[in-house]
């Protein structure tokens, strides 16, 4: 927000102004810090550079423009465009020999001895999100949003709505919300039959429906401390399988991959999570902390701890270290491979994202303003490292000597700029 040149004010007037600002701020999240008496534009732009060693690379510019109206309404639109290139694990296990995999587009990919087989890909994704916030009856606010995104083999259409009410002299905010997505999956080369050797089920699109709901409670604890608890539930149904992922068929004796089948997942998934968040204001600095517990009916349970500490420097600059720890259990049908000749299970995947997994993230943001350009700039660098169970107890033969889940290193850089006018 640009305040411009202001006249000297009395302490009482400053305090009353702060109180008025506080009431406005608590009554409307995210972008309500503009002067509500005048229409205001808010622009929030960023670009993500994402890279995994020898794997995926992504560049994603995002811009969000928000129009604030004098009566407290706001309308925002966010446009994102992803460019993704590189390679992703196919799900096949490494072996002591060269492996070849045929991609959906018919290319034959060769993986080196002992390495995790990868599938090359290239895709772009465009996404548009819109949101309309409107105050109703003083302490009640509604938010309505919509989403559309499209990539080469996936389309998502979504809508959501939230209702928030401030209670107890605006010390408490209760929020309820719901959303729904109608997505379509149209795999390149057609949709394979689950647990087949690649037999094509059909070449049309597969439907995926996502419905979610949440209840949130936000409380002002002290003058410096605000905390919240959110509970959300997500129900997914339809085609939830990764059409390009495979599961290795393993020799019963030596454990070597001797073939592969397309993975297969259940057609429903019920997710639940509880998120506790806290923001604490020290003299100048601010500590953000959160903990999330998640579980679903696929057997995945996870803990996520996230902490950021914003340390104010002189001249409107700050640094913000970030630490995040994530740990999940494996899905019930996750496997490092199926024994050849044994009866097939109903569902199986070797997608490491459904395996036992830990992620550690370390990051640092530097934010600053300049005298020459209005608004705030920030630059953020982060490093994520993902660990799995690379030597599972049930590995057989030569598999037990190989690292089935070598750690994955991911580096990200985010350049961001926000301005109000």
């Amino acid at each position, binding site marked *: 927000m640009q305040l411009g040149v202001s006249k000297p004010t009395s302490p009482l007037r400053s305090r009353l102004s*702060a109180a008025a600002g506080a009431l406005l701020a608590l009554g409307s999240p995210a972008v309500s810090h503009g002067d509500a008496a005048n229409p205001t534009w808010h622009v929030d732009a960023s670009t*993500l550079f994402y890279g995994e060693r020898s794997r995926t690379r992504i560049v994603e510019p995002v811009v969000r423009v928000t129009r604030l109206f004098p009566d407290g309404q706001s309308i925002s639109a966010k446009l994102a465009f992803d460019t993704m290139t590189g390679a992703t694990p196919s799900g096949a296990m490494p072996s002591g020999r060269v492996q070849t995999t045929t991609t959906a587009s018919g290319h034959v990919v060769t993986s080196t001895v002992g390495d995790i087989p990868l599938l090359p890909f290239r895709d772009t994704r465009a996404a548009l999100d819109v949101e309309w916030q409107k105050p109703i009856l003083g302490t009640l606010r509604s938010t309505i949003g919509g989403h559309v995104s499209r990539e080469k083999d996936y389309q998502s259409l979504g809508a959501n709505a939230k209702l928030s009410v401030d209670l107890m002299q605006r010390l408490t905010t209760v929020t309820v*919300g719901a959303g729904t997505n109608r997505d379509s999956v149209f795999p390149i080369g057609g949709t394979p039959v689950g647990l087949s050797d690649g037999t094509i089920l059909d070449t049309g699109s597969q439907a995926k429906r996502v419905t979610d709901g949440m209840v949130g409670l936000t*409380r002002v604890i002290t003058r410096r401390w*605000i905390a919240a608890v959110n509970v*959300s539930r997500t129900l997914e149904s339809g085609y939830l399988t990764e059409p390009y992922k495979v599961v290795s068929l393993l020799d019963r004796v030596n454990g070597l991959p001797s073939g592969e089948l397309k993975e297969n997942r259940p057609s429903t998934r019920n997710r*639940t999570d509880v998120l506790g968040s806290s923001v604490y*204001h020290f003299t100048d600095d*601010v500590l953000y902390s959160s903990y999330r517990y998640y579980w679903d009916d696929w057997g995945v349970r*996870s803990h996520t701890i996230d902490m950021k500490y914003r340390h104010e420097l002189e001249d409107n600059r700050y640094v913000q270290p970030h630490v995040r720890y994530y740990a999940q259990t494996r899905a019930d049908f996750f496997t490092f491979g199926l024994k050849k000749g044994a009866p097939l299970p109903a569902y199986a995947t070797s997608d490491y994202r459904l395996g036992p997994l830990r992620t550690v993230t370390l990051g640092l943001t530097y934010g600053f303003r300049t005298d020459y350009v209005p608004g705030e700039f920030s630059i953020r660098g982060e490093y994520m490292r993902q660990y799995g169970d690379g030597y599972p107890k049930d590995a057989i033969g030569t598999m037990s000597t190989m690292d089935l889940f070598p750690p994955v290193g991911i580096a990200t850089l985010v350049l961001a700029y926000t301005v109000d006018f």
Partner: protein
Amino acid sequence: MRPRTGLLMQALLVVALLGLGAGCAATRVKPWDRDLLAEKKMQFNPSPSESDVDQHIYFSKEGSTGGSDVGGGGCGCN
């Protein structure tokens, strides 16, 4: 959902809500004392675009999702 997990989480949720309620009941922050709370950096999500980027990354690299909001876009990344 595992029944024991559900019960545990429900108990934790009740404790958290009671804790929040007790904390609020013990301290009445008057409107003129909310200057710090009004600062943009006191929002749970002061940088929505960066937060969206983060959620997209975590959604595509991990088996869990959700928590702070509803809706949002699906993608073929997971």
